[in-house]
C-alpha cells in the first residue's frame, strides 16, 4: 500500500480523461489555491509588509533615532525586566506542572489542566483588572500596601504580575501534550537503574523535551514582550526617560507614539516586535519539521 501514497504524490502526465479518484479537476484545484492565496496575501502578507514599509517611511536615520530615543530605550529596558522575571517563573511552573500531570495519576488531574488554561481564555484587560482588584488602592491588599508605601499597580511590579498571568499557560500547554505522548517509560527505566530524582530529570526528561520547551519558552517570551491589554490596565502609561524607568513597555510605548501622531516612530518600534514574531513563527516551523522527521 506504500506505492499508493507514492503515486498520489508523483503522478505522471496522465491522459485528460484519467484523474486519480481522490483528486479534484485541475480547474477546481487552481481556483481553490488562487482564492486561498489572494485571501492570505490580503490578510497576512500585506499587513506584514506594511509594518516594515511604514517603519522606514522616513528613512533609516529616523528609524534608528526612534529606537535609540531614551523613552524607547526605557521601554525596552522595562520589557526585558518584565520578561526576565515572568518567563523563567512560568517556565519553572510549566516544568513542575507538566511533570506532576504527566508522570503521575491523581484525581482532579483534568481539573488542574483546565485551570492552567484559564488565563488563556480570559480577556487581557480582565487579566489586568484582577490584579488591580487585589493590589490596587481599593483592592484586598490595598490599604496594607499603601501603609507600607509599596506601589504595585501603576508601577513595575504590577506590570510584571499582569504579564506573568497572561503568559502563565504557555510553557505548560506546550510541555503537557509532549510529555504525555512520550510516556513514563524512559524515566522509570532510569529509576530502575538507580538514577535520583533530579538526575532523572536532567539526563532523561530534559533532553527529550528540549525542543518543545524551547518553543514554549519562545512563545511565552513573544507574548510577554507583546502583551498590551493587561499591561495597559496596570500601567501608569508614563514614558520613561534617561533618569527613570517609567511604566511603559514596548507595546505601550508604541501606542503612545501612535496616539501622538508619530506613526512612523510607532511602526519603527513595532517592527522590532514584528521581527520577533517572525522568529517565533520560523522556529515553530523548524521544530515541527524536525519532529516530523524524527517520527519517521
Amino acid at each position, binding site marked *: 500500500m506504500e506505492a499508493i*501514497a507514492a503515486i498520489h504524490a508523483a503522478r505522471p502526465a496522465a491522459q485528460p480523461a484519467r484523474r486519480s*479518484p*481522490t*483528486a479534484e479537476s485541475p480547474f*477546481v484545484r487552481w481556483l481553490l489555491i488562487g482564492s*486561498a*492565496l489572494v*485571501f492570505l496575501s*490580503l490578510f497576512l502578507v*500585506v*499587513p506584514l509588509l506594511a*509594518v516594515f514599509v511604514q517603519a522606514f517611511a522616513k528613512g533609516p536615520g529616523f528609524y534608528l533615532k526612534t529606537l535609540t530615543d531614551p523613552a524607547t530605550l526605557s521601554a525596552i529596558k522595562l520589557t526585558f525586566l518584565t520578561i526576565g522575571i515572568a518567563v523563567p517563573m512560568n517556565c519553572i*511552573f510549566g516544568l*513542575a506542572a507538566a*511533570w*506532576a500531570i504527566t*508522570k*503521575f495519576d*491523581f484525581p482532579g488531574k483534568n481539573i*488542574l489542566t*483546565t485551570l492552567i488554561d*484559564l*488565563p488563556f481564555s*480570559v*480577556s*487581557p*484587560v*480582565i487579566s489586568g*483588572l*484582577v*490584579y*488591580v*482588584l487585589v493590589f490596587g488602592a481599593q*483592592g484586598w491588599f490595598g490599604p496594607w500596601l499603601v501603609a507600607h508605601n509599596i506601589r504595585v499597580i501603576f508601577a513595575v511590579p504590577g506590570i510584571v*504580575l499582569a504579564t*506573568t*498571568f497572561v503568559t*502563565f499557560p504557555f510553557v505548560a500547554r506546550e510541555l503537557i501534550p509532549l510529555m504525555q505522548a512520550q510516556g513514563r517509560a524512559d524515566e*522509570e527505566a532510569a*529509576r530502575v537503574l538507580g538514577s535520583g*530524582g533530579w538526575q532523572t530529570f536532567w539526563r532523561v526528561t530534559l533532553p527529550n523535551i528540549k525542543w518543545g520547551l524551547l518553543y514554549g519558552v519562545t*512563545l511565552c517570551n513573544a507574548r510577554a514582550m*507583546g502583551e*498590551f*491589554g493587561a499591561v*495597559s*490596565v496596570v500601567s501608569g502609561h508614563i514614558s520613561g526617560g534617561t533618569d527613570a524607568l517609567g511604566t511603559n513597555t514596548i*507595546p*505601550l510605548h*508604541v501606542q503612545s507614539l*501612535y496616539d501622538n501622531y508619530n*506613526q512612523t516612530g510607532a*511602526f519603527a518600534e*513595532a517592527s522590532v*516586535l514584528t521581527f520577533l*514574531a517572525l522568529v*517565533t*513563527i520560523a522556529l*515553530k*516551523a523548524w521544530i515541527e519539521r524536525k519532529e516530523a522527521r524524527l517520527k519517521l
Partner: protein
Amino acid sequence: MLRLRQRGVLPGFRLTLGYALLYLSIIVLIPLAATFAKAGELSPLRFWHDITTPRVLAAFRLSFGAAFLAALINLFFGLLVAWVLARYQFWSKRIMDALVDLPFALPTAVAGITLATLYAQNGWIGRWLAPLGIKVAYTQLGVFVALMFIGLPFVVRTVQPVLEDLDLEVEEAAASLGANRWQTFWRVIFPAARPALLTGFALAFARGVGEYGSVIFISSNLPGKTEIVPLLIVTKLEQFDYPGATAIAVVMLVASFALLLLINLLQWRSSRYYART
C-alpha cells in the same frame, strides 16, 4: 483535603504538584477569586443595573456579535486555507503555511496599528474600498475585520491536522460507490472535519470576545456604537468606577469559563470520534 500520597515510582510528586498548585493559586486563582468577591460586594440590584445600561448592552452586542460573525466567516476561509495547505502543493506553500501563525504570534498592539493604518481611507487597502463606499476604519466593520484577522489561525490550525490525517481509502470507497468529487467532499470529508471546525469556531469566538489591542486602534471607540467591552472596562477603571468595571468583568469571566468548558467538551468528544478501536 487532597492527600498528596506518593503515587507511582517516579519521584518529585509532592514537590512538583505542591509548587504548581501554590503558584497557580497565587498568580491565577486568588486574583480571580478577588474579582468574584468584589463583585459579590455589590447588591444584586446594583450588579444588574451596572450590566444592563444601554452603553454596556451596546458593548456586549458589539463584542459578542462581531466575534461571532468573524468566527463564522473564518470558518469558511479557514477551511479553504486549511484544505489548500493540507492537500495541494504549490509555490510559496511553506511560507504561507508558516504565516498563518502570524496573527497569533504578533503583538496585539502591532496588529492594531497596522490594521488601522491599512484600512484607513487613505490606507493601502482602504483607498480601494473608499470609492465603493465601504468604510472600514473607525466603523463596526473595522472591528469585524480586526477580529477576523486574529481569529484565523485558530480555525486553520484546528482543521488542518484533521484534513491531513484523512484516510484516502475512505474517499476511494466513496468514489467506488459512485460519488463524484463534490459528493465525496460534502458527504464524507466535510462531516469528518465538522468537529474540528466547531472547535476552531469556539476558539476564535472566545478569543474575539475579549480582544483589546487589535481592535481599539481601528475602531472609533464611540460609546454605544463602536465601543467593545474590554475598552468599556478600561474606561470605567480610569473613571474609578471599580464596581461597574468588576460587574462587567464578572459577566465576561463567566462567559469565558463557559466557552472554555465547551471547547474542552468539544475536544474530548472529537477525540472519541477519531479514536480507532
